[in-house]
């Protein structure tokens, strides 16, 4: 791309299409949120199983993790999109999202994120030491009670830094949903500059959406920093 393309005139193009890009941003945020939520709900138990589980369950969980971490995200997404016998779902108005694509993208990003989040949690749980579990068991708590009331609240706090990485990765990888035609930010960006006569605006559009990704990443990371501080255990971790 020629630097000459960066002319003032093409920035006007972004401004006049800001609503169109904003809707794409909304889809990106929704997809990030649903994927991270799925990743958390599946990832924490998976991490706990890797530490405390036994036998087949543990083997199954760690194998699933290896497969998910070892498969390119585009492949997962296409696989979930074309491979799952999902019923024909409608299209959401306003943000113009085909639900089938959205669900496939959520499953792909969510399960892959679960595989990575499981490792974050596994590490956090192991960093607590066995004493916490033993102390909980020694007053008569079941393993499940101990995980819920003693291990989970501490492990989640220690997982925040790792989770920040994971958030950043998932946010940026929502752009891969472009491969299954989901109208998220990157897809919409491309729709813009592929219009006849707008090919001179490619750089401007890309720079504009990069800024959006950056702002989202930065703002969320700062929020998580604050969360980490305000939920820090008084006196610090031992």
């Amino acid at each position, binding site marked *: 791309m020629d630097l000459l393309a960066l002319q003032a005139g093409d920035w006007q193009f972004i401004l006049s299409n800001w609503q169109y890009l904003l809707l794409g941003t909304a889809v990106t945020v929704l997809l990030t949120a649903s994927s991270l939520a799925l990743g958390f709900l599946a990832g924490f138990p998976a991490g706990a199983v890797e530490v405390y589980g036994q036998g087949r369950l543990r083997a199954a969980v760690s194998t699933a993790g290896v497969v998910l971490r070892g498969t390119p995200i585009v492949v997962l997404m296409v696989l979930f999109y074309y491979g799952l016998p999902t019923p024909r779902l409608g299209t959401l108005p306003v943000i113009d999202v085909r639900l089938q694509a959205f669900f496939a993208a959520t499953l792909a990003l969510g399960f892959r994120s679960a595989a990575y989040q499981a490792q974050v949690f596994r590490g956090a749980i192991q960093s607590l030491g066995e004493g*916490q579990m033993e102390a909980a068991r020694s*007053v008569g*708590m079941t393993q499940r009670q101990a995980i819920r009331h003693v291990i989970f609240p501490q492990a989640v706090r220690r997982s925040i830094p790792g989770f920040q990485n994971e958030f950043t990765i998932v946010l940026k990888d929502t752009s891969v949903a472009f491969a299954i035609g989901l109208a998220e930010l990157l897809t919409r960006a491309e729709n813009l500059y592929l219009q006849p006569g707008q090919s001179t605006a490619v750089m401007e559009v890309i720079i504009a959406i990069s800024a959006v990704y950056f702002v989202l990443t930065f703002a969320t990371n700062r929020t998580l920093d604050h969360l980490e501080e305000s939920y820090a255990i008084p006196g610090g971790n031992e």
Partner: protein
Amino acid sequence: MSLLRVEDVDKSYGDERVLRDVSFEMERQDVEVIVGPSGSGKSTMLRCVNRLTEIDDGAIYLDGEEIHGLDENALRRRVGMVFQDFNLFAHRTARGNVTLGLEEVLGLSKEKARVTADDYLDRVGLADQAESYPAELSGGQQQRVGIARALAMEPELLLFDEPTSALDPELIGEVLEVMRDLAEEGMTMLCVTHEMGFARSAASTLTFLDDGRVVERGPPEQLFDDPENERTSAFLGDLTDVR
């Protein structure tokens, strides 16, 4: 009937035999102290009693019931444990450490658990630290919270696994004082410790464990002053010299 009866217990970790034919009995209100060199199997013995560690062979009876026939959580409600490294729940206040078991295991209401917890914290001299988090407390205070946590469950037997070994010397006294008070109040206690002063003055029975075997067992005066076994006198003599 004795409260605790340990019968011919064997335990190995791989090829290493940690406990060999260990047997002893405790009556209610007994304070049994186990001493011995490190690696002699003392802590393992203790952990077998609440099944944090499972035995390979033998039997352990609590009030006449074989503990492996009991639900492990039910057993642990009846047998409390105090750890060398305190193992306080780091994310909960001193009070929160005590209330968790009361609420989740005994099913007390929040309010009842709070009152009970404060009562036990008071008993270990920490009424004013109920809101403090473990990391804000000294080691001695943390261990006293650990004792309150175990005590609040109203166990029939309390296990102490080297409760003062991780403490700075000046903090040992406050923990031993709480343990002495408990002994005087009639708490049944099984203690692994290196505190020979406590062993001598508070124990109703002293057991010397070496290489996974009970070498000698009897009243503390006998083991300290007139031991039958050479190894006992060598071990206790060495320690006494150091003091």
